């Protein structure tokens, strides 16, 4: 598999604050990758580094095998839609589409028009006057219709209703299966997208704490519930990421160890077992550690 992104010991500091702290990872071609983490964890900084919107403090960064900084070959293959993307005040939706058409070589006008219809976007309206949700929809149309070899969505659906979000996921999957490309999707709505994601990166405090296939992660953790004594006995020697006692019962979330079949063991001791969703897993792993420092430092 070709590697689209190779990051090696990357640092990005804002003064004293370490937004990205010694991060290394790679992303393979034609996968949909989820970039998850709390507010201020460093997700947006990481995506801005990949697209050369901010510059790294130290470390190595390669996109399509080259440094993206001021690199036309690399940048022309990237479409980055961020939540806070600003458009010129005088521009109508149509103006933005026209400019996008000239910017992205794979632009599909027909697809763009059908998306405009799907999202009920008024072509003549100035972007400044669009509602928050509609502005997000404009970004989504650009991101999908550009068919850029590397498409990055950073919280693309602020203010977008559930119907439109569903529409976005459907259109993304349809078009992705027809025109495979590398997609990075950063979001807080993990449950909604967990079925789309093939690879998961979790960022916490400027560091990557999970970098794995979604398939592997889905079986990683489970929750056992039962009488406190029995559960405690079961937990011995295992990696517990969350505990929640209530009355004489204890509910604990455990990381599955690779060799032993914990499920059977737990079942044998009469404990109740339930799978942990990706969202719960991420919440447990990042809870309490992250702070809001990142958002403030920027």
């Amino acid at each position, binding site marked *: 598999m070709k590697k689209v992104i190779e990051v090696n010991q990357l640092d990005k500091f804002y003064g004293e604050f370490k937004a990205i702290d010694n991060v290394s990872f790679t992303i393979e071609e034609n996968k949909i990758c989820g970039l998850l983490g709390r507010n201020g964890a460093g997700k947006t900084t990481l995506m801005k580094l990949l697209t050369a*919107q901010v510059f790294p403090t130290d470390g190595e960064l390669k996109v399509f095998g080259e440094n993206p900084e*001021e690199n*036309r070959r690399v*940048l022309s293959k990237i479409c980055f839609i961020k939540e806070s993307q*600003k458009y*010129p005040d005088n521009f109508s939706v149509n103006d933005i589409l026209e400019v*996008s058409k000239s910017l992205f070589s794979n632009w599909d006008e027909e697809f763009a028009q059908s998306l405009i219809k799907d999202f009920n976007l008024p072509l003549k309206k100035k972007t400044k006057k669009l509602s928050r949700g509609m502005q997000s929809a404009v970004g989504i149309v650009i991101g999908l219709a550009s068919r850029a070899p590397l498409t990055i969505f950073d919280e693309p659906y602020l203010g977008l209703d559930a119907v439109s979000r569903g529409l976005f996921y459907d259109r993304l999957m349809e078009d992705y299966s027809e025109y495979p490309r590398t997609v990075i999707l950063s979001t807080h709505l993990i449950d909604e997208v967990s079925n789309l994601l093939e690879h998961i990166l979790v960022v916490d405090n400027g560091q990557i704490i999970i970098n794995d296939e979604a398939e592997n992660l889905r079986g990683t953790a489970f929750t056992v519930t039962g009488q406190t004594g029995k559960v405690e006995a079961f937990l011995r020697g295992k990696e517990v990421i969350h505990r929640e006692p209530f009355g004489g019962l204890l509910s604990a979330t455990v990381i599955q160890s690779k060799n032993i079949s914990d499920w059977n063991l737990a079942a044998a001791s009469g404990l109740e077992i339930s799978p942990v969703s990706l969202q719960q897993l991420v919440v447990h792993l990042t809870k309490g550690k992250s702070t809001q420092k990142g958002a403030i430092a920027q």
Partner: protein
Amino acid sequence: MNIQSVLKMYFRDKWAWFLIPNLILFSVFLLNFIISLFIPGDEEFYSGGGFSYIIVYMLVLGILVVTQTFPYAIGMSIRRTDYFLGTVVMAVVTNILYAILLVILSAIENATNGWGDQFHYFHLPYLNDGTLLEQFTIYIILFINFFFLGFLISSLVRRFGGKGVLIAAISSILVSSAIVLFVTYYGAWMDIFQWFASHTAIEIAYGLILPTLIYICLPYLLLRRATV
């Protein structure tokens, strides 16, 4: 070519680049021309000067361009260098058009003896004394100078934020105060006025070429490291 995309982006904004400046230029002209009709007798009527509106507008446009389009262009994966080059091409071409427009209007005004009413708006003494080519050169240097002064100020904000501009503003005020102080101390004001009087407008415009080139180059260095 990404420079073409940058130009395309600017062409979509017809109001900022073409409609608003022309609207200002011609509505002020019309207003003043009507006023001049009410002036009795053979008296000459000099009004503000059409070129000054374009100059001021170019300063404003230079400032607005960065705040309006830089975050958008960088967000759309345009190289900083291409954004800069595209802006230079757009500004130079636009200002050439305005310079041609003003030279033509000045020639017409001169030929019709102030639109038949001794009304002077485009053709002014001193400024329009030279040949048509000289007038054109003066305009183009002035317009480009002011556009990129605005562009420089705005690039400074983009690169260093409000604090950087404050420092730049304070230091330029300090430097100019020091110059004024020295000129007054050595009683050199008369010499300076005489120097201006002894030089034609075109000679002074030539003197502006070097600062203009600096205004053009500095924003590149600033925007090259600016983030969005």
